[in-house]
């Protein structure tokens, strides 16, 4: 009888489902904007989810759980920072190994906590805003963690595009050599971005185990870390678009459960994969040069926001250690090759 209400509650569930992804994807976006790939998100999220749940259970405080999860995520990120930034080893290899290691570690250490009931983030609807039609039930009848994620997305955007430090993060991710020449401490900025990003991935893990699907079981968050990494790329390394991507994923995956019951003949996997198929289509469209051609027809004022909104170019120095090679090839001036000609 009330289709609108049903749709709203579906969307609200979807938004809640996407909260862990929002934290993780925004955190990873921050890291990657500084030119570092922290590929450990899958394991890091899982381990943080376990540690966060365990800490909240033992201390009885949800906040302590989140703090422990953030610390765990930052700790994993520290390994990436030391190996990939300071020792200039392959960030891909380090991250991948960590992803597997942490996932297994969560199973080993998390044994005692499997299927134990524990604390969760209490629901809290916001007094006035919850009564706003449509927006109220959609956004403001949830819990503090979800509200904090709205704030996080806004803060991440302001940080990246409106603060000196955020500009430095972007600069270091694009042209570390040029940033260094201007007096920036490339390694320091990258380390900071990696640690903060890691902590957010950790909070994403706890958002799963203390809120979205409270509790702990073997490989509780399986798949969410990889999905977060994919969302960062499809989101064009922008926090707002990453958050929208996470929401899109939430919507499509909660529709999958609906679709499954409505269309039992279609395998459920079709629905869970659909978001990515859709995002690939969007990406293919936006990177085909079609937009560039379209933009060329528009005046500057319209062209810039359009191109910026769909720009999905990764930071130029993403995953590349700085200074470039351990043997200091970068430091060799042009004139120092095989002598004078």
């Amino acid at each position, binding site marked *: 009888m009330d289709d609108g209400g049903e749709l709203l509650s579906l969307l609200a569930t979807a938004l809640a489902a996407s909260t862990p992804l929002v934290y993780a994807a925004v955190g990873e976006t921050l890291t990657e904007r500084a030119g570092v790939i922290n590929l450990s998100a899958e394991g890091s999220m899982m381990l943080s989810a376990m540690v966060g749940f365990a800490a909240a259970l033992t201390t009885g405080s949800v906040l302590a759980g989140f703090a422990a999860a953030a610390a765990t995520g930052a700790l994993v990120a520290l390994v990436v920072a030391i190996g990939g930034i300071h020792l200039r080893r392959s960030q891909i290899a380090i991250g991948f190994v960590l992803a597997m290691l942490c996932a297994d570690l969560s199973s080993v250490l998390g044994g005692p906590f499997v299927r134990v009931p524990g604390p969760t983030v209490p629901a809290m609807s916001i007094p006035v805003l919850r009564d706003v039609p449509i927006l109220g039930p959609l956004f403001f009848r949830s819990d503090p963690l979800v509200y904090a994620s709205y704030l996080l997305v806004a803060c991440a955007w302001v940080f990246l595009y409106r*603060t000196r430090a955020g500009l430095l993060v972007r*600069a270091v991710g694009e042209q570390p050599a040029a*940033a260094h020449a201007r*007096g920036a401490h490339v390694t320091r900025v990258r380390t900071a971005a990696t640690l903060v990003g890691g902590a957010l991935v950790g909070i994403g893990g706890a958002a799963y185990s203390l809120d979205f699907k409270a509790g702990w079981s073997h490989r509780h968050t399986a798949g969410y870390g990889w999905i977060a990494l994919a969302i960062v790329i499809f989101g064009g390394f922008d926090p707002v678009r990453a958050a929208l991507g996470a929401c899109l994923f939430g919507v499509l995956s909660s529709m999958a459960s609906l679709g499954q019951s409505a269309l039992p003949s279609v395998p459920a996997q079709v629905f869970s994969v659909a978001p990515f198929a859709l995002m690939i289509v969007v990406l293919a469209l936006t990177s085909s040069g079609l937009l560039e051609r379209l933009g060329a027809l528009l005046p500057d004022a319209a062209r810039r926001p359009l191109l910026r909104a769909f720009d999905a170019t990764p930071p130029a120095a993403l995953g590349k250690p700085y200074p470039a090679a351990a043997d200091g090839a970068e*430091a060799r001036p042009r*004139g120092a090759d095989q002598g*004078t000609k």
Partner: protein
Amino acid sequence: MRIEIERVAKRFGPVNANDDVSLTIQAGAVHGLLGENGAGKSTLLRILGGLLRPDAGRLRFDGRPVALDSPADALAAGVGVLHQEPLDFPPLTVLESFLVARPRAARAGGGARALLPGRGRAAGVFLPRRAAREELLALAARFGFSVDPDEQVARLTLGERQQLELLRLLSLGARALLLDEPTTGISGAQQEALFSALRRLKQDGKAIVLVSHKLSDVEALCDRVTVLRQGKVAGEAEMPAGAARLVALMFGKALALPERLPTAGDGVALALEDVGFGDHRLDLRLARLAVRRGEVIGLAGLEGSGQRLLLRACAGLLRVRRGRVAIGGADLTGRPYPAFLRAGAGYLPADRRREGLIAGLSIEEHVALRAPRPGVFLRPREIRRAAERAIEALRIHGRPETPVEALSGGNQQRAQLALLPGDLALLLLEQPTRGLDIASARWVWEQLLARCRAGTALLFASSELDELMRYSDRILVFSGGRVSPPVSVADLTLDRLGRMIGGELDEPAPAPAEPAAPARSDP
């Protein structure tokens, strides 16, 4: 600011890049630093800019000894370096790139904009976009540069990026400016704007160092010149000193221009008929072009006006939108790249390190890649001999196992030439002498002209008007989204070529009829 360089030395392995270099750069003067490739100019510039630490010797700025550990140190001491490839951030906007890592003090220096006391800290956290925009625009207006703060840096030309970097250095209080080959790859108008800005800065009392291998730049701008040769100071001269003397100082001998005898012969090497080609930005038309064997066609115009597109279309790397392309009489329209290669087309792109050669592979491996004999396994001895022959023939400074990225620009160009098959019908070159010193450039042209005498037709794009006028038989001018009909060099002057590049393509109205007549009477 007065810069004194005292007995500076820097070694890289066995190479003395700078060997006991002493010189003084006066405030309010433009000091030229000349020398062939590898003479040590760039090393000295990097030492002054804080990018390299010298092994011995010291620097004094205004009489005070300084130790520079980083470019930021150098800038704090008042030295700003304008690199050949400006150190900016292509994906950012002009304003953002201007603001990256900008010290807070630089903004406070503006003074007039008194901030509310309570906002002091917040202003340090957030980007001072409005203030920076005003400062940038005011500075740009002072030097007559046109700057759009919201444009993406990636969409600017090299000359515009250079102007932006210059403004940034000045806004940070640079009292000495070091410019590394600033006129490479920028348009004539931009060069004029740059030179007049530099003359102004000179009058303001800045010390300016101009590193160049172009004598014309040095003659136009410098008050004094120091010539480096093999890491040592070969000599100093007050300007004007005369080109011959400078060349003699640079190379230890006078150089003769390669003789330019007509090489155009009979037979058509390349025929284009009513071709249309382009990319998402440009859509160009060329009614008719018949290039004879041994003929040299110059492609003039500001960079990015479509010269590269034409070269790529002739090389088979870009499909023409309409019309016909034939090489050596064979119609290749719409055929794949290998068909063009078989027909004898060769293409040397401007970006040697990224497009022309494969960084990470050695000279030997490059030779192996175009192995004439098919087979599964590499034949090491045969390949080594071929590589040694190529190195010998083209006097490449390197060994068969030297990775190509370790070669200097001149040697990379030699390596590219060495890798071309011997009997090309058509050779397409983009900026064939970019980054090469006078002696290397002349040597490259000797090689190219030798190929022309053997019957290879040459199409080359260049931004050097002298080069175009000296070596071309006919010139196509690219300007404002159009291509001129071929103009015989005999009908051109430097001035007229410059105006055509500037957009006056229509002036030589009778040109379409002309090229055929003098071209035929050439041989």
